[in-house]
C-alpha cells in the first residue's frame, strides 16, 4: 500500500511536470509564430507565392504570345498561301 502511495505521488508529479512542460513548449511556439513568423510574413508578403503565380501567369501569357500564337499564325498563313496558290493555278 505504501508502494502504491509512492507511485501515486510519482504519477502526480509526472502529471504536473508533463502538463506544465507541454503548455510551456507549445506556448513558446505561439510566441515564436506571433513574433517571428508573422514578421517574416510581413517582410516577405507572399513574395514567393505571388511571384510564382505571376510567373505562371506570365508563362501562360508568353506561351500564348510566343509559343502557341506564332505556330497558329504560321499554320494559318501557310494554309492561306497554299489556298491562294491552288486558287491561282486553278484560274
Amino acid at each position, binding site marked *: 500500500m505504501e508502494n502504491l502511495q509512492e507511485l501515486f505521488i510519482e504519477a502526480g508529479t509526472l502529471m504536473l511536470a*508533463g502538463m506544465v512542460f507541454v503548455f510551456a513548449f507549445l506556448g*513558446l511556439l505561439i510566441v515564436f509564430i506571433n513574433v*517571428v513568423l508573422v514578421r517574416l510574413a510581413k517582410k516577405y508578403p507572399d513574395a514567393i507565392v505571388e511571384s510564382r503565380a505571376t510567373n505562371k501567369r506570365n508563362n501562360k501569357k508568353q506561351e500564348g504570345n510566343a509559343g502557341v500564337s506564332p505556330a497558329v499564325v504560321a499554320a494559318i498563313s501557310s494554309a492561306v498561301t497554299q489556298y491562294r496558290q491552288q486558287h491561282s493555278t486553278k484560274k
Partner: protein
Amino acid sequence: MESLKLLWMSTGLANFELGQVIMMLVGCGLLYLAIARNFEPLLLVPMGFGAILTNIPVAGFSEVGGLLHYIYYAGIDTGIFPLLIFMGVGAMTDFGALIANPKTLLLGAAAQFGIFATLFGAIALNAIPGFEFSLKDASAIAIIGGADGPTAIFLASKLAPELLGAIAVAAYSYMALVPIIQPPIMRALTTEDERKIEMAQLRPVTRVEKIIFPLAVLLMTIFFLPAATPLVGMFCLGNLMRECGVVDRLSATAQNELINIVTIFLGLGVGSKLSADKFLNVETLGILALGAVAFSIGTASGVLMAKLMNRLSKEKINPLIGAAGVSAVPMAARVANKVGLEANPHNFLLMHAMGPNVAGVLGSAVAAGILLALVG
C-alpha cells in the same frame, strides 16, 4: 503406424492450444472490423493477419528464425517503423491552419491532459488485485490518450514491450471509434449557442513561414526536450520535405510508398505480439478501459480549454474544435466539423479544427518525449 502418429503430431489440429484458438479469433475479429466496418483498415488488416500467423502452432512465426520475430526486432524493437511512419505523417501534415491561428496550440496542449490523467488512472488500477502496472507500464498505457498510433507504438516498445500488442490494439481501435466516442462528450460540454459560433477566416500563410516552422519546432525540441527528437525530428523532416518544394519526389515517397510499405510491416510486427500469454489476461481489459478513459478526458479537456479561452479573449473560437486537440488526424477534425454543421449548417469548422488537430500531434510527441525522459 509410427509414421502415421508422427504425421498426426505435425498437424495443427494435434498441437492447437485453447489460447491460440482464442487469439486467432481475436485476429479474425480485427480483420472483420477492418474489412466489414472499415475501422483503420490499413493497419488492422496486417495486424489481424499477423495475430493469426503468430498463433499457428508448430510454424513458429514469432520464435527465433520466424519471419514475424525478425520483423518485430528489426522494426519495432528498434523503433524504426513508427519513426518512418511519423516521417510520412509529417509529409502529409499542413501546418498552415496552425500558423494562421497559433492560439489553437493551447487546445492541442490541453488535450494532452488525457495522457497524464490516464497515467494516474493506470496507477490507481493497481489497487485492484490482478493489476500490477509499474510507472513505465502506466506511461506506455497513458500515451493511448495521445490518439497517435505511431507515438503509442514507439513509446510502448521503449517502456513496456510486453504490453505493446494490447496498447496498439487499444490505440488504433479508439482512433477508429473517434466518431462514436467524441460527439456525446462534445455536446454535453457545450451549449447550442457555443456550437453555432462562426470563426473568422484564416489568414493566408506564406511559404517562408511553412518552411521555417518545422525547423523552429526541431530547434526548440533540441534545446528543451532532446528525448523527443526521434519523433519530432522525423516528423519535421517529413514536413520540411513537403514544404520546401524542391524534393517533391521524396515527399511523395514518404507519404505514399514508404509509409505503405512500413505500415504492412508495422501491422505484422504488432500482430506478432498478440499471443495468448501476453494478450489474454486481465491487464489487457484494464488497458482497453483506460484507453477509452484517456480519449474521453483528452476530448473533454480540449473542449473545456476552448471555453476558457473564450472567457478570456474577445476573439471567439468554437469550443468544438478543442476536441480535435487529441491528434487522430484528420478524423477528429472531421468530427468537429460534423458536429458544428449539425448546429449551424453554414458553419464549416474543418480548416479551423485542423489547427488543434496538428497541434495535438506535436503535443503528443512532446508528451511522449517527457515520459521517455522522466520514466524511461
